[in-house]
């Protein structure tokens, strides 16, 4: 097991390097000039050129890339072109926000998705089942940024229960912090809840049909105990996998949600950096995000192995 972990971690390194290479290359291809953005609308070409030189952007791409890799070895992610701080600082400021948002969304997903799926599976083809399935399907199909806009109007203005944007740090005001995350996490979680409910239901159905379970039932064991002990444990396997995938999707989906709700998280940091061509932030941010996803996959795989002894770990 330990060897497996080590091997996986080592395998992740070339992946991460490729990630940074792709990130850097794409940005190189992206036309557009961070110097122009920084210098402002009214700047002349000469002024923009000046900014470019001051920021060191007129040096060749390979030089800048090499410098960045060297910095990486030292643990230095570089200095943002537009944010007036190091990339590391910018990321550290954002990570807790996105984690909070994704965490709450994940919580909602599991707390709503799993019971819904189980319930639907326990009463197949009933109205409960149909309802869950339909809602799940709708959740997966709705464009969540559009839904966010509708939600903002509904809950932020017409009913005025919740803030319509912005983020209040937990340390500043826990209640406001929670309130500012309600709409965004719901918008974010909707798709995942639908997915998880469906998968849970499907797995549950499969497991319930399983001979093993039927035998236990036939033996007269109470339904609840059967469900509780045997079925749920087996259901958790794909559920755990989906949760892992969900978390990745959540981080990805947070880009749009954070933009619509003006929440200063990693997603928005990266999106804004792409639009303002802040290369150091893009490269550093994508590296951190990718590393997180890789680690996450590893954890999910380990959990998977712990839950299902049938899974073997031969060479990929």
């Amino acid at each position: 097991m330990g060897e497996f972990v080590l091997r996986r971690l080592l395998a992740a390194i070339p992946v991460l390097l490729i990630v940074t290479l792709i990130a850097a290359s794409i940005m190189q291809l992206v036309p557009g000039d961070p110097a122009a953005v920084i210098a402002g609308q009214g700047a002349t070409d000469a002024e923009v050129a000046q900014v470019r030189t001051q920021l060191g952007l007129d040096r060749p791409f390979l030089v800048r890339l090499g410098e960045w890799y060297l910095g990486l070895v030292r643990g230095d992610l570089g200095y943002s072109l537009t944010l007036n701080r190091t990339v590391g600082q910018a990321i550290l400021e954002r990570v807790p926000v996105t984690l909070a948002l994704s965490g709450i969304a994940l919580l909602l997903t599991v707390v709503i998705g799993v019971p819904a799926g189980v319930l639907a599976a326990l009463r197949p083809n009933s109205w409960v089942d149909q309802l869950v399935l339909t809602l799940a399907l709708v959740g997966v199909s709705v464009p969540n940024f559009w839904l966010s806009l509708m939600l903002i109007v509904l809950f932020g203005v017409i009913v005025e229960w919740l803030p319509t944007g912005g983020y209040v740090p937990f340390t500043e005001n826990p209640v406001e912090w929670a309130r500012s995350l309600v709409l965004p996490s719901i918008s974010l979680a909707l798709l995942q809840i639908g997915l998880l409910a469906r998968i849970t239901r499907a797995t549950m159905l499969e497991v319930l049909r399983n001979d093993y379970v039927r035998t236990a039932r036939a033996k007269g064991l109470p339904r609840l105990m059967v469900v509780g002990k045997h079925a749920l444990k087996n259901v958790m396997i794909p559920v755990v996998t989906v949760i892992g995938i969900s978390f990745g999707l959540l981080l990805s989906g947070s880009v749009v949600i954070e933009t619509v709700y003006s929440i200063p998280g990693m997603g928005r940091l990266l999106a804004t950096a792409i639009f303002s061509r802040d290369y150091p932030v893009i490269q550093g941010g994508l590296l951190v995000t990718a590393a997180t996803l890789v680690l996450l996959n590893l954890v999910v795989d380990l959990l998977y192995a712990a839950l299902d002894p049938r899974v073997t770990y031969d060479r990929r």
Partner: protein
Amino acid sequence: MNRGIGRIATTAAAALALFALAAAPAAAQKRGGTIVFAQEAPPPTLDPYFSTSVSTRNVAMNIFETLLTRDENNDLIKELAEDYTVSPDGLTYTFTLRRGVKFHNGKEMTSADVKASFERYRRMALPKVTLAPVDAFETPDANTFVIRLKQKVPVFLEEISAFVSPIAILPAEQGDREGGKIDIIGTGPFQFVEWIADSHLKLKKFDGYKPDGRYKGTDGFAGRKEVLVDMVDIRLVKEPGTRVAGLESGQLHIVEDIPTESAKRLATRKDIVLYDLKNWWLHGAWVNHARAPTDNPKVRRAMQIALDMEAIMDISSDGAYALQAGLQYPGNPYYVTDGKELYNVNDPKKAQALLKEAGYKGEEFVIITNSSYQSMYKAAQVVAEQMKAVGFKVRIDVFDWATAMARRRNKDGWNLWFTGQGTGPSVGPFTALKDVVSPQLNQFVADPVLDKLFDEMIAGETVDARKASFGKFQARVYDQVHFLKFGDFQRKQATRANVKGYTPYRIPRFWNVSLED
């Protein structure tokens, strides 16, 4: 015994009442609280020398101050300069500095700080060319600052008081800092607290600030600045809908920019006050003189007279606009109307005929606009439709701002590049359209007549002389179509009704503003 107590009680009550009355005005003065302001764009930097962005200036001009600046009518006004004299030969400017001005770090401002600031500006500021005619800076004593020029520049004071990229006075230690790397320490009424990128900035009242006794109240960027709140929380809210919603729910106190449609709806609410910021920017587009078909003057004329400026402005601003031909705003000292016979001609038939006459063979007409400024995005679409109607073959390229800016330098890439000229015209005629004058040449082909008129304008000895030259300059721009003006864009701002003392201006001014309960 009872009566004794009764008398004491009554006296005490009366004393309390008197005390309460006396204390009341004092209590009313001491307001405090935090103003929450919503700004659309994040500032690329807080170093005022290193950007011409509005978003930088919004914040920086509450933190920093300058020697000279502009008042409510765009005239010169003294800020950190107590007074100044100009030598008869126009080569020496002597400034006497105000005394007892403190920086946010407690240090007192002296001429050494002013000199270091000007030298840094000359070294690395974006418009450092402003200080190119300077021969030397001198500091004969701690309260006097002298600028010696190499040649006479009649508009020198107008230039160093310009706020496109203001010459903020920094502590001398910042003098060798690179662009964007200064410590945010100024002399202004507000002090920098923190900046969480892409979320908000916080400023707090600078207790060591001494309001300028020469003035009575707010006046442009200067005046008597008293801080009536404890903090300012500048939130960065990109989505206009979210800004409006925040204002309606009371989370935001002042919002920089409200969509016009929302403004109509908000006007009925008693808890919200709306403001018109007229003359926000000139809406228009640069015209490429090097690329077909706009390299042909007749084609340019056809395009110019084909457009219905009212439709363009109405749609792109949702009704918050003014149609006028000037490249300055009405009321500015240099406002002229030369060239207006070519503005908003709106004659598609004549345009069509002219286009044929010009020999237009269907060359593709490329418009570059951007998705970052909705008004430019919308205006481009209307312009494209109107041009197609008279026979042009039009293609619109929409880019994000960074790409659009990069593409502007591509001579073969566009015929019209959509823009909003805001600060330039508001500062004066020399900055209004300097981008079509050599060496910048947004239109890519130098116009010697225009260049000569510009030089003539700068060298004019009196305001009237300069104004006359500017009139000819403007007429030439209309004649040759270096810049296509659509109209004046107005901005709607709004505050909660409990925000008192706020007057909209080119930046949000947080001084003399208070929050009532």
